[in-house]
């Protein structure tokens, strides 16, 4: 891989051991990819927290050791300097305010707070959400980024037109210290063109519809680039947030085009950019039903736990949930957690939405989600969620069974303790 003089100097240790180890990782990674060079980035979103039980031992050696091993893949423990690129923290395993509700031991919560202090002082912005684009990190079209979080990556590429691959904990750690990432994949314009045409034969409109469409397409298309055509209504941030997260769970979709809506596709022709259409995928009632059936693995209609906010809820979703709960009480047999970024939680507090949800018996959580934390209310066997991503991962990670449906179905399940949702 070709390095510039400055990159070579970092590699050689002229700018300190941390950057040298970061360059070592980037070179090994770039060569694995067959990348020809690196590209400059000033927008990194990664995972720097130390909130899982498995890193307890490592934390005893200090946070320099944590960063060296987990964020740089370096045996040598290096002193972590300030980040060279603008960098933010994605979702973590612990809600700094509600860890006891999660069932997290105090020492782990304390460990995360000490980690945040350390990484925060190096310039890592503690957004602590899977949706940085909701709380101030909104890259512009063409901006080279190094982001983790598959649901954020697909949003960044497709909706914003910025350029990132799905990076990992180690590559974002190295990018943050060097301002470099391999120039490969979605950083290159010709790799961003559509490959598959999707013909939508049914109205795709609400959040649940977009989630089902994404879940179906991910499984069929894997990590290729779908171009949507046909009967969809104008989506918004919330719908595309759910669509992308679902497609990046059942498959590996990192980029899609919606002609006339997403920025690199003013038309179907521009979306394909001269690419041959490799395949055409039809999406109708039967396909929608198949996605729904695949997501709903539960049989027991008694719901122990309702999880809303994956990817983290927008403030409008929190308001919708608060409105649906207003003046009502959730079942004594069911718990309800509503997840939103901490910055939006502040808005929810000011508006009284948090109070409305808590008065009904629910909790408003930030910084985490059950799939990441692996913590749910004690004894949970059956969960209901409006998130295809959460319904996909929670059964695998925690062994629960899941119901997937609309926000309204989920709120009703929280109130009655029974799942009565279904496909309309």
């Amino acid at each position, binding site marked *: 891989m070709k390095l510039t003089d400055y990159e070579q100097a970092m590699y050689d240790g002229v700018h300190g051991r941390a950057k040298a180890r970061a360059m070592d*990782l980037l070179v*090994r*990674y770039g060569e*694995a*990819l*067959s990348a020809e060079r690196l590209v400059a980035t000033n927008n990194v979103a990664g*995972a720097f927290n130390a909130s899982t039980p*498995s890193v307890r031992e490592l934390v005893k050696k200090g946070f320099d050791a944590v960063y060296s*091993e*987990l964020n740089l*893949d370096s045996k040598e423990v290096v002193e972590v300097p300030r980040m060279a690129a603008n960098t933010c923290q994605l979702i973590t395993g612990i809600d700094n305010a509600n860890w006891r509700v999660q069932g997290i031991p105090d020492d782990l919560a304390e460990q995360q707070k000490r980690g945040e202090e350390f990484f925060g002082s190096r310039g890592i912005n503690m957004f602590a959400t899977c949706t940085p684009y909701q709380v101030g990190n909104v890259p512009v079209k063409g901006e080279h980024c190094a*982001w*983790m*979080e*598959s649901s954020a*990556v697909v949003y960044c590429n497709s909706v914003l037109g910025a350029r990132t*691959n*799905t*990076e*990992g*904990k*180690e*590559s974002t750690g190295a990018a943050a210290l060097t301002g470099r990432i*391999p120039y*490969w*994949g979605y950083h290159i314009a010709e790799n961003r063109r559509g490959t598959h045409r999707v013909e939508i034969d049914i109205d795709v409109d609400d959040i649940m519809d977009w989630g089902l469409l994404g879940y179906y397409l991910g499984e069929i298309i*894997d*990590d290729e680039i779908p171009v949507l055509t046909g009967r969809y209504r104008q989506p918004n941030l919330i719908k595309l947030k759910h669509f992308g997260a679902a497609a*990046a*769970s059942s*498959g*590996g979709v990192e980029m899609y085009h919606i002609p006339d809506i997403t920025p690199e596709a003013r038309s179907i022709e521009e979306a394909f950019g001269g690419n041959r259409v490799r395949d055409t995928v039809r999406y109708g009632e039967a396909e929608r039903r198949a996605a729904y059936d*695949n997501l709903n*693995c539960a049989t027991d209609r008694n719901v122990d736990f309702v999880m809303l906010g994956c990817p983290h809820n927008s403030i409008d979703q929190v308001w919708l949930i608060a409105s649906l709960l207003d003046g009502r009480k959730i079942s004594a047999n069911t718990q309800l957690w509503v997840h939103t970024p901490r910055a939006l939680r502040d808005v929810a507090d000011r508006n009284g939405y948090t109070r409305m949800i808590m008065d009904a018996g629910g909790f408003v959580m930030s910084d985490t989600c059950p*799939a990441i934390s692996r913590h749910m209310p004690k004894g949970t066997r059956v969960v209901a969620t409006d998130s295809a991503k959460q319904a*996909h*991962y929670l*059964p*695998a*990670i925690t062994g629960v069974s899941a119901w997937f449906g609309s926000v309204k179905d989920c709120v009703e399940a929280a109130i009655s303790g029974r799942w009565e949702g279904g496909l309309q």
Partner: protein
Amino acid sequence: MSDTLAPTNDAARIVLRGRKVVGGCAEGEAIVTRDTISGWGGINERDGTVIERRHELRGQSFKDKVLVFPGAKGSSGWSAYFHMARLNGASPRAMIFNKMTTKVALGAVVTHAPAMTELERDPLQIIETGDWVKVDADNGIVEITKRRR
């Protein structure tokens, strides 16, 4: 080849060339899947077991095996989970895959095990679970000894 004529120690051997992803040389028993693999939410990093609900390898572990698979999918935690599997002593001995992505490239790099891709023939067609596979990534060679069936 008829079993009665073949010498007992002369199992069918196949050599394939490919591209090094991570250097080194290691051998072991193959575990093969046609399903792409998720890291975070797809494997248990403590014992190397695949946990995805509708996955062909669900409940089976790749620990100390040569993992042969189409590629990576799902969460960006792919590398972090294979990284932790290595720290826990539960990583595969080597990896062979078809489709290059950033997830699988970074995951292979931090697993520190020899890894190869772009084999001259589709490894999923040729290698079966239980075959003995040597991955000599430094020389770009995969050597397959078919298990007697």
